[in-house]
């Protein structure tokens, strides 16, 4: 299969995000999949560099190998090929037990410490907009060794401090007092790690585990570090940029569009010019 990088006109932004997400997966890992683009990314990893990864769907499919991409994790397409079709108690117990290496998540807002908000915009007690709520976001983020967030990049979404911490980043609140502490101090024996990357529509960000602060790792083609820093409400660390985000290979594009998502449920095909 053709592992050459595709030319810019051959792929779209969703392809780039999907491939960047896929490359976060290592072989033999147990991965917790959410609905949407992450599902394509994980199954892409399964087809390419991580054939032995184990997939868990939150609704209860364990070690899934779906022949067709499920539309959501409760989908009837999850079951076929799995080790077991079970329920949430198994999925969350397995996660709390410490089996999960990596989880893919999303969010409406993220802050400089990787705290994520999917609950509401504005004051919780009088919100400007009520969103979906947490779902399993904080659970996967509490239990997994690493979590990767895939997000639309807008300046209002990359905040200094999220208006509501739905999902715990590296520096979180110690209740009932609410003082900010490193998550290691709170989680005790259950501490396994935390957010390891944010893949936005502009670049890939990582975290310094000690300070808990986010920094820019790679820029997607066409964006400079300074431009991306201007798109954050906090002072983004751009001193550790390692280069440009690698484009999809032709092999990856083949799998995404011909095998995994030919119906274009999650990833639109780029029309040839």
């Amino acid at each position, binding site marked *: 299969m053709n592992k050459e990088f595709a030319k810019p006109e051959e792929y779209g932004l969703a392809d780039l995000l999907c491939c960047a997400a896929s490359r976060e997966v290592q072989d033999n890992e147990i991965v917790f999949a959410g609905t949407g683009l992450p599902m394509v990314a994980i199954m892409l990893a399964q087809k390419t560099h991580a054939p032995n990864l184990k997939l868990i769907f939150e609704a209860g499919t364990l070690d899934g190998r779906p022949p067709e991409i499920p539309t959501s994790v*409760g989908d009837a397409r999850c079951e076929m090929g799995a080790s077991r079709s079970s329920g949430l108690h198994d999925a*969350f117990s397995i996660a709390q037990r410490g089996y999960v290496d990596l989880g893919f998540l999303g969010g409406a807002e993220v802050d400089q410490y990787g705290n994520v908000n999917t609950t509401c915009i504005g004051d919780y007690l009088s919100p400007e907009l009520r969103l979906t709520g947490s779902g399993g976001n904080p659970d996967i983020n509490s239990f997994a060794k690493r979590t990767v967030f895939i997000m639309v990049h807008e300046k209002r979404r990359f905040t200094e401090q999220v208006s509501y911490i739905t999902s715990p980043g590296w520096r979180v609140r110690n209740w009932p007092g609410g003082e900010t502490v490193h998550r290691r101090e709170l*989680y005790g024996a259950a501490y396994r790690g935390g957010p390891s990357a944010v893949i936005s529509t502009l670049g890939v960000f990582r975290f310094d585990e000690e300070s808990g602060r986010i920094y820019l790792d790679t820029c997607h083609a066409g964006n400079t570090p300074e431009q991306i820093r201007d798109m954050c409400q906090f002072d983004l660390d751009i001193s550790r940029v390692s280069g440009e985000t690698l484009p999809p290979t032709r092999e990856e594009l083949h799998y995404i569009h011909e095998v995994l998502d030919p119906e274009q449920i999650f990833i639109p095909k780029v029309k040839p010019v």
Partner: protein
Amino acid sequence: MSSGKRITLQQAAEIVKNGSSLTFSGFTIWRRPFALVYELIRQRRKGLHLIEVNGGPQTEFLVGAGCVDIWESCWVGHELYGKYGANLSRKVGNKEILVEDYSHAEMLFRFSAAASGAPYAVTQTSLGTDIHNPAYDTLGNAGLRDGRRIPRHKYRFTEDPFFGAGAQVMVPAAKVDVAILCVQQVGEEGTVRVNGQFYSDPEVARAADVTIVMAEEIVPEEYLRRDSDLNTITSFEVDHILEVPFGAHPTGMFGRYDVDGAFLKDFYGRTRTQEGFDDFAKEWIHGLDHLGYLEKLGWPKMLNLKANTALKYSTGVKRGQ
């Protein structure tokens, strides 16, 4: 042997009183007891307290119709077919509903605790988040924590006293009056066989005081007992049963039919306003019974959603662009 558990949709809805606490089978847009949800809306039930492992279209319909005063859960939306719960969001904005937020695992563990007769569950999830912000205890702020059906506290912290593993959060058992399940098969005596992922159905069925099971088909109990290892819920955990084919529509059912994505998209698009919701309810709920609803959907739509018996999902539905 008939156990006399059979009831009608109307009778099932009457078991849910104004002010009852209520929960459901299923997961987001799969296996939700819609025929009964519609009947509750027709009967104009008020003051419901929904306690759900996760919400979905059933939440949005009941909330939009003004049946719900309190929603305790972690998520509401329509997955790919509507990114958030617009009716809940509108009512939160207008302060017409109380919302108590837990995480997904916390909700699941709360039902597990109730299902095993324990007063609470203990977990390490969601530490450090605003879910545990004491100012955001909605039911406490509203003075509703009576220590009977509504627990005295939203959560409590403790330290592991056995192994020194550090901070733990205790979350209260989810005590509910009624659970309504929507499954593939139930026997005459109440034995349930769920095909595919069973989500949190065993926990919610056991946690509730009254469990109603709505099935695609009521089958001879003896048929299910021939292979009892394939069954999901015990006969005596189920109080009432009813047969309602296509009863989960517009949500899907493994092995039977797919999610009606176009229907959910239409609902999501049209019910951003109360007027929009009322208009939708007039078209699809009021003045219809279940058969009238199916007739309105029509055979071509239902055949399109019908699952392939080998694959367990429909090969006819258009899912993408």
